[in-house]
């Protein structure tokens, strides 16, 4: 049914001479996987005043690769992601392979517009009469087909992040950047989200960069785990486990080894630092959600 009405829309738009090509391209893209971008980072540096956050980072990421970036708080992993998203500009060095509109960012907090219905949040930034229809179909992909008409305030934390995921996917990104999007969710919801993200990544074929605190999450999802330490890549490890990954001895051994390596980065003479508090989102302070 929806396909038929959709074709009529496109036809009538053509008859009126309206620009529909970008829409059609976007549709084709979201319908069939189109491989992700390949990235080449050369001498990438970022400093805030006196503080050097990234030190001449060199990195190659293959098309369609799923890379997890782990490291302690303040090691520069989020900064790297924000540079790739174009939210900030590097102090030195450059990034090859980026095409602005092909990159989408998933934030730690869902950042949904509280005054827009779920379906309109997903359709944010889309043009055309069929925007809502497309948003609805992407919502179905994240398992929220029934909730399109609700206000974001009515959703749980996990559902909000799924809406944010749908909002990113509708643009058929060739690079998806995920900045600890599951950090605030409970363990069961996280496992559910892992399956969802992996499935959508396999289906759409985008390149994915996931920043996470959770080594287990990195091992569950990534082809490759990078450890960033003081703004440098300290470890670059392939995860050879077959997908879908189940928690078994091989998984546990790999996770253990990576975790030990991450913990080594602690300066030997200082006492173990308390776990960092989850950052309070500005939104949560200002809006009585």
């Amino acid at each position, binding site marked *: 049914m929806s396909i038929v009405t959709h074709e009529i829309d496109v036809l009538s738009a053509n008859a009126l001479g309206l620009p529909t090509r970008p829409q059609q391209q976007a549709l084709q893209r979201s319908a069939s996987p189109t491989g992700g971008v390949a990235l080449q980072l050369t001498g990438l540096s970022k400093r805030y005043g006196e503080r050097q956050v990234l030190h001449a980072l060199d990195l190659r990421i293959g098309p369609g690769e799923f890379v997890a970036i782990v490291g302690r708080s303040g090691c520069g992993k989020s900064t790297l992601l924000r540079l790739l998203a174009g939210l900030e500009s590097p102090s030195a060095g450059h990034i090859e392979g980026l095409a602005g509109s092909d990159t989408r960012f998933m934030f730690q907090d869902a*950042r949904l*517009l*509280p*005054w827009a219905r779920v379906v309109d949040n997903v359709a*944010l*930034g889309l043009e055309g009469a069929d925007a809502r229809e497309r948003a609805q179909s992407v919502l179905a992909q994240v398992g929220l087909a029934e909730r399109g008409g609700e206000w974001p*305030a009515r959703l749980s934390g996990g559902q909000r992040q799924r809406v944010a995921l749908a*909002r990113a996917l509708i643009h058929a990104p060739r690079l998806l950047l995920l900045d600890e999007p599951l950090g605030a969710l409970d363990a069961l919801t996280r496992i559910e989200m892992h399956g969802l993200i992996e499935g959508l990544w396999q289906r759409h074929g985008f390149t994915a960069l996931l920043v996470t605190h959770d080594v287990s999450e990195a091992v569950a999802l990534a082809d490759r785990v990078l450890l960033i330490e003081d703004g440098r890549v300290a470890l670059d490890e392939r995860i050879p486990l077959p997908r879908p990954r189940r928690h078994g001895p091989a998984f546990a051994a790999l996770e253990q080894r990576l975790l030990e390596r991450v913990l080594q980065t602690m300066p030997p003479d200082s006492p173990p630092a308390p776990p960092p508090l989850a950052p309070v989102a*500005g939104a949560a302070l200002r809006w009585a959600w």
Partner: protein
Amino acid sequence: MTPTRFTPSAWVSQMLPWLLPLFILVAWQLSTQFGWLSTRVLPEPWAVAKAFFTLAVSGELWGHVWVSTGRALIGFAIGGGLGLALGLLTGSLRWAETLLDSSLQMLRNIPPLALIPLVILWFGIDETAKLFLVSLGVFFPLYLNTFHGIRSVDPALIEMARSYGLSGWKLYTQVILPGATASILVGVRFSLGLMWVLLIVAETISAQAGIGYMTMNAREFLQTDVVLVGILLYALLGKLADMLARGLERAWLRWHPGYQQS
């Protein structure tokens, strides 16, 4: 033995808030009837109701209400419109804030009613003077709350919207303006309250028509019942304006859990 709590039925709990006003009304009626209270000081409620009825039937009342409401709304439209426009301007553009905000903050500290002598000198005692006073009074609550609303839109949402390709007018209408709405509506409610206060004062100074004129006229003829009708009308209109503002909140802030009806 479980302790039973007093749970009034729905009907009783709905009527409970009206119990005290009803009691006062009955006490008032009785005390004037038995001559404990001079009708010169306070006429009996029944006389007020009769005066209201007579004025309503003769059509005189509606004329006055119409004139007063017209003044209030025109003043609100001018002052509130300007407050909204300037608040959006200074809230959105840094240079506009630097240019205008400190001057406006200085003006804000002058109570509008302190300007009455000057206003009479400028505009005489005709319509313009009343509209000026009302406009000036409603301007500042709307200006301040609009400015504050625009400035307190969550920067994380703006960053998100920009990274999703929104900019300029689209960013403004889809993110900034909706984000400021709650604060702007607080300004509207403050303004509507001030609107009637200022109108009452302006109409009591001098007027040829309006509720204020009606009550001042009645005072000269010692018609205390008509004076009370005027006072009650102001209360009623004020309540109506507040209900209107709350209606707007319910319509425009449906998404906001704080304004949702259960």
